[in-house]
């Protein structure tokens, strides 16, 4: 994925979320704003052979993975035109046919599932990588340990990507996790790991490419920690606990502005180009909203469909 595409992908996520937030009918959402570079950089290292799993903070990962914004919007607004027919919602968004095995809203819950997907792929001799994005919070859970151990033992094609935004709801990472760097957790299992600046999409992509290459080679799992910032509250239904002054500094670290500035400095991005991207993204989001709005809510009888 080239540098402009990285920018556009991040811009799309931001614009999508902003549009979603303007609606009164989204229930509540866990936004990826601020963390776009983690999703986009990771997905830039994935091919159509690969699949992605994520936590319930799913908008960034889903869009970065290339899901159509319209169906994603429909899913988040509870419409049947969503890939899960509007029943998965933010926490359980999934479109395996598009390389997104899905979100799972149980913290840490997708880690052993992802290892299982990787096991199936290994058994079937498929070439792909199974990538799983999870938060720093999930690093406290035993599931990470169990998944890392078995993935390392069995050399599963699993790329673990920790989107360390420094918070689990109101709890700072330092008060929840003893390791100095979260990627240190991979060391006992003798898997390659890296900690990168999660606000720098190029750094994320390059590290993800390197680690994915290791995984792709059949040598087993790898662990990538991306240190990021959460721009919004934990969810749109939760209170902000960070002081305003701190928030200003956090928002100043915007991964989109940072990447755009780099491209401008390099001469890759012009004002016109940027305006064009902004228009494209806005159009895409507007289309997505129209697509979603035109779709119905599920029927009551749907409540008993696809149970077993």
């Amino acid at each position: 994925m080239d540098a402009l595409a990285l920018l556009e992908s991040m811009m799309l996520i931001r614009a999508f979320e902003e549009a979603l937030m303007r609606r009164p009918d989204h229930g509540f959402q866990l936004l990826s704003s601020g963390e776009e570079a983690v999703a986009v950089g990771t997905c830039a290292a994935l091919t159509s052979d690969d699949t992605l799993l994520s936590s319930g903070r799913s908008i960034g990962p889903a869009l970065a993975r290339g899901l159509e914004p319209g169906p994603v919007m429909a899913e988040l607004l509870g419409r049947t035109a969503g890939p899960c027919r509007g029943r998965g919602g933010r926490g359980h968004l999934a479109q395996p046919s598009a390389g997104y095995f899905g979100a799972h809203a149980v913290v840490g819950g997708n880690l052993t599932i992802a290892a299982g997907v990787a096991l199936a792929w290994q058994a079937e001799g498929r070439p792909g990588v199974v990538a799983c994005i999870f938060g720093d919070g999930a690093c406290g859970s035993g599931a990470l340990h169990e998944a890392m151990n078995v993935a390392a033992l069995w050399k599963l094609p699993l790329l673990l990507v920790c989107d360390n935004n420094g918070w689990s709801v109101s709890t700072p990472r330092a008060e929840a996790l003893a390791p100095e760097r979260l990627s240190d957790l991979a060391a006992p299992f003798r898997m390659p790991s890296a900690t990168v600046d999660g606000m720098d999409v190029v750094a994320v992509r390059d590290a993800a490419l390197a680690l994915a290459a290791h995984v792709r080679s059949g040598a087993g799992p790898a662990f990538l920690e991306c240190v990021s910032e959460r721009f919004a509250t934990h969810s749109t239904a939760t209170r902000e606990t960070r002081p305003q002054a701190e928030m200003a500094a956090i928002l100043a670290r915007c991964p989109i502005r940072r990447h755009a500035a780099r491209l401008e400095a390099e001469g890759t991005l012009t004002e016109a180009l940027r305006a064009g991207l902004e228009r494209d993204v806005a159009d895409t989001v507007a289309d997505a909203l129209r697509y979603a709005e035109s779709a119905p809510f599920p029927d009551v009888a749907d409540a008993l469909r696809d149970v077993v």
Partner: protein
Amino acid sequence: MSSETTPPVSKLFFAEAIARALHEAMSRDPRVIVLGQDVGRYGGPYREFSGLHAAFGGRRVRDTPVAEASMVGLGVGAAAAGLRPVVSITYMDFLLLGLDPLVNYGAKLRYKTGGQLGAPVVVKTTAGARGQGVAHSQCIESWLVGVPGLKVVAPSTPADAWGLMHAALQEDGPVVYVDHKRLFPTAGELARDAVPVPIGRAVVRRRGADVTIATHSYMCRVADSAADRLAALGVACEIVDLRTLAPLDVDTVCESAARTGALVTLEEGQLACGIGAEVAYRVREKTGTMRVARVGALPAPVSSNPVLEAASVPGPDEVVEAVRGLLRP
């Protein structure tokens, strides 16, 4: 001037009632501590731990990692060693991660050590649907009811939230305290001289001669709405709030059902092997034959989708229909 200046009751919200009970218990008993995600400065996802961190500090009100297995294990182990921990498991769905220490250790500890140790831990958790989807909406109280050594309480009013928390903190063994997302913002009264609610005692919330509705937690409010509607149709419902699910106060339900001659059980969780099946069995065991209907969730997961959620968990409509079906001659 006179004592009447202090009103005999105070008004408070459900979430406040929990915080108040904990504040009182923690003031009185240094062994009480709180462990949970975001229970500290944040005050809990529903503000139900509000003020405790400020009052008692970070060593007695501890934010934990997102690691429910260890949270329950820590609570059970600390209880066995002399503390009286309250462990907050945000949603009951996540209690699945902590069932091993709770069920395989805590609930069996007194028995397996021949009385040498016990685990007086209170696991406070929140059940029920409110737009949060398949893994954040479940009601699995019925599982816990069949675990020897566990007690299970489920308040439906602020007064009971307060009274059952105090009672749970006085137990010698583990208690699971189940509240409900939709109850936190509800208000109610608490008498200044209130005493702990005895564990194992149901209460009649509404009197009526035609049918008994036995239920608990948020479904008490659903039952009440249904009863209002039925009253308009000339049917008088008696509502028994079970309050404690283990031990279950079958006598109170039996007395009521014997009076009304018909019993509807109502729960938000699944019917199969549920609370209703148990209540129905035990009531019939005592009363002989009894007309019974049960109401619960559809046999399906609970989606965050508003249409599907509303369809899958019981509301007043389903209760009205069940009562009318039962009373139809």
